[in-house]
């Protein structure tokens, strides 16, 4: 409710009171037009990739960019400009370099380095009195560092790292962001620079900029750089660094922006890609339910790293795998096994194969959560890489499963499906399949149903395939095929069977605990 003591001035500011209708209407229209114009300008800028603000005289002609001579002449001009004492000239030179380095095709990274410009650029990073200069220098160095290892090395060896780390704290957001980006490129070069950055204190400096009011674009860059600090093995980033970064990464994993989510998740995938101790550190954060949730997202950019992370986790210990199962991963996997993208199918099958390598209680959970039917589908219809993973799942399952579980798998059509894959070229896969067949026969032996199984195999054309493999060029393959035939498919005389017994010992079937 408006108070009684308004001055006229404030009164006139209020929307409708004390104003003439026509004036108000005119104002509304003008505003609307302004808004539309601003929007239009934005989209035009986006499409044409042109900067409309502060366009100084470009030193490099933007149209004639492919000419080597023009470039080297331009670079000479740049060198001259940045070596003056005039801030104006320095800025111009730096900006011209930046434009060269950020053009679409063949940016002249090497030429810029060889012209000796990096020294000046790094110097300019320290010019807190001239933010424009700092920004252009930071951008130029970012782009040089985005090249090969050699390029990145040049940037580092010219002393850019401490300067960039200092710039992380810059009050100018665009400069801080540029420093984040440059450091991300340096970290991404490999474990040595990554660790060098960590030694220089990059982590606390980065985390200090992780505030709730940070704009999305800034956060995206920050998350990407963090992920590069988690990346690479030989060696892994040290534990203390990981512990420092994890809480923030977890935070970012709950952010609304999909790019931020994706990069934060990639960080998790790097951190889980290692020995079980590494996986433990991640599981302890309690992030598993959120990872499982992300498996159900629409965006491939989110699903891919989430699935990779989960796959890494279930390639760990049985306990770690159980943690993933408890978080609900089994209910998310079936739809991933039917995902339109074959790479997702493949990774899902890989995850299943590792779960199937666990104890029979976990195999039972595969059954109860309905993973078998989609698995058989993949065996039948997946692309080869996916089929390969699915085959591993079957072998692991038949190796660790109880007799009943194995029978169930056969009833789902898995045996027929893998028999159909016996003709693939990939030797390793053939061996894995033969292993699975052998495991299934072992289960049949326990039930006294070997004959039935032989019939089944024969009916679906499997016997022919196995027989054919006895001619395979690979020793291990033909011996394995032979062994199967001899053991289960040949009429072996008593004398010969004794011989076989002494060779291969086990007519004692391995006792597996149910």
């Amino acid at each position, binding site marked *: 409710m408006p108070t009684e003591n308004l001055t006229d001035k404030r009164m006139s500011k209020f*929307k409708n009171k004390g104003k003439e209708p026509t004036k108000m209407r005119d104002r509304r229209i003008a505003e609307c037009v*302004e808004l539309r114009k*601003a929007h239009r300008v934005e989209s035009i800028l986006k499409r044409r990739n*042109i900067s409309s603000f502060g366009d100084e005289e470009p030193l490099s002609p933007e149209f004639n960019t492919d000419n080597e001579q023009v470039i080297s002449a331009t670079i000479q001009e740049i060198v001259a400009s940045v070596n003056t004492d005039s801030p104006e000239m320095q800025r111009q030179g730096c900006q011209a370099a930046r434009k060269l380095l950020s053009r679409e095709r063949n940016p002249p990274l090497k030429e810029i380095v060889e012209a000796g410009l990096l020294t000046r650029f790094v110097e300019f990073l320290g010019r807190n009195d001239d933010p424009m200069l700092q920004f252009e220098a930071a951008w130029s160095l970012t782009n040089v560092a985005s090249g090969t290892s050699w390029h990145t090395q040049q940037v580092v060896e010219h002393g850019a790292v401490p300067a960039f780390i200092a710039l992380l704290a810059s009050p100018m957001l*665009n400069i801080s962001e540029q420093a984040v980006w440059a450091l991300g490129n340096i970290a*991404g070069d490999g474990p040595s620079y990554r660790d060098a950055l960590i030694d220089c204190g990059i982590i606390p400096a980065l985390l200090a900029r992780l505030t709730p009011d940070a704009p999305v674009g800034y956060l995206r860059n920050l998350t*990407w750089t963090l992920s590069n600090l988690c990346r690479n093995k030989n060696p892994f980033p040290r534990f203390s660094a990981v512990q420092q970064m994890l809480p923030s990464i977890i935070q970012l994993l709950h952010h609304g922006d999909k790019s931020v989510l994706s990069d934060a998740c990639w960080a998790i995938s790097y951190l889980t890609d290692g020995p079980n101790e590494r996986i433990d550190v991640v599981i302890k954060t309690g992030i598993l339910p959120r990872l499982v949730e992300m498996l159900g997202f629409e965006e491939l950019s989110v699903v891919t790293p989430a699935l*990779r992370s989960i796959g890494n986790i279930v*390639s760990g210990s049985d306990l770690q795998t159980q943690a993933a199962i408890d978080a609900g991963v089994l209910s998310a996997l079936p739809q991933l096994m039917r995902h339109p993208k074959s790479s997702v199918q493949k990774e899902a099958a890989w995850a299943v194969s590792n779960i199937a390598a666990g104890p029979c209680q976990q195999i039972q959970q595969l059954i109860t959560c309905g993973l078998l039917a989609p698995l058989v589908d993949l065996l039948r219809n997946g692309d080869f890489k996916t089929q390969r993973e699915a085959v591993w799942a079957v072998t692991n399952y038949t190796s660790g499963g109880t007799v009943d579980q194995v029978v169930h798998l056969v009833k789902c059509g898995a045996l027929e499906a893998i028999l159909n894959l016996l003709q693939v070229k990939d030797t390793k896969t053939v061996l894995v399949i033969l292993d699975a067949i052998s495991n299934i026969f072992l289960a049949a032996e326990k039930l006294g149903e070997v004959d039935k199984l032989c019939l089944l195999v024969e009916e679906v054309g499997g016997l022919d395939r196995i027989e054919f493999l006895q001619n395979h060029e690979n020793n291990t393959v033909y011996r394995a095929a032979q062994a199967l035939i001899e053991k289960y498919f040949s009429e072996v005389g008593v004398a010969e069977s004794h011989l076989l017994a002494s060779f291969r010992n086990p007519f004692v079937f391995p006792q597996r605990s149910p």
Partner: protein
Amino acid sequence: MSQTSEPSADAAVTEAPVAQSETKQSTAGKKQNKKKVEEVVEEEEEEYVVEKVLDRRVVKGRVEYLLKWKGFSDEDNTWEPEDNLDCPDLIAEFLQSQKSAESGGKRRAESDGDGKETKKRKDEPEKLRGFARGLDPERIIGATDSSGELMFLMKWKNSDEADLVPAKEANVKCPQVVISFYEERLTWHSYPTEEEEKKDDKN
């Protein structure tokens, strides 16, 4: 005088061995001829870095590992005797991956297609907009959320060009300007009294 030889994969798995190009006798008075041996040379300090251990085999009783060299393609992979190697981490990793394949059947990820770029070039020309222009806000002249995020159209001091800034940013950087904007646009709805309500109902 030393010759630089073509660095061979054999020679430099960790550090290049520095070979002696001359030998000296300790006997007084006798000068040892400086032998210039063709093969024994001072190697350049080039380091060849093992990127990954790919396979293992036993040849004539010696254990050898198949190595992928950093910066070289797979065509340049070589088998090296294990005694020549100084990359215990990589060997351990390889053996671990083999082990987990056998015991319990767990298989680690193949790092094919990690999917995320390791480095990014910034190739968009910077459209300095909004607060990045470094100007002082004068007043907000409009608002829109068609991009999904609430944005204000900001008129800056000493500039004719207005542009869009995120409301989130403006709320923090110039709250008074934001408040003025909202106040200018407040409308007050008067609540109908009981009598007026009855009147409306009749209509």
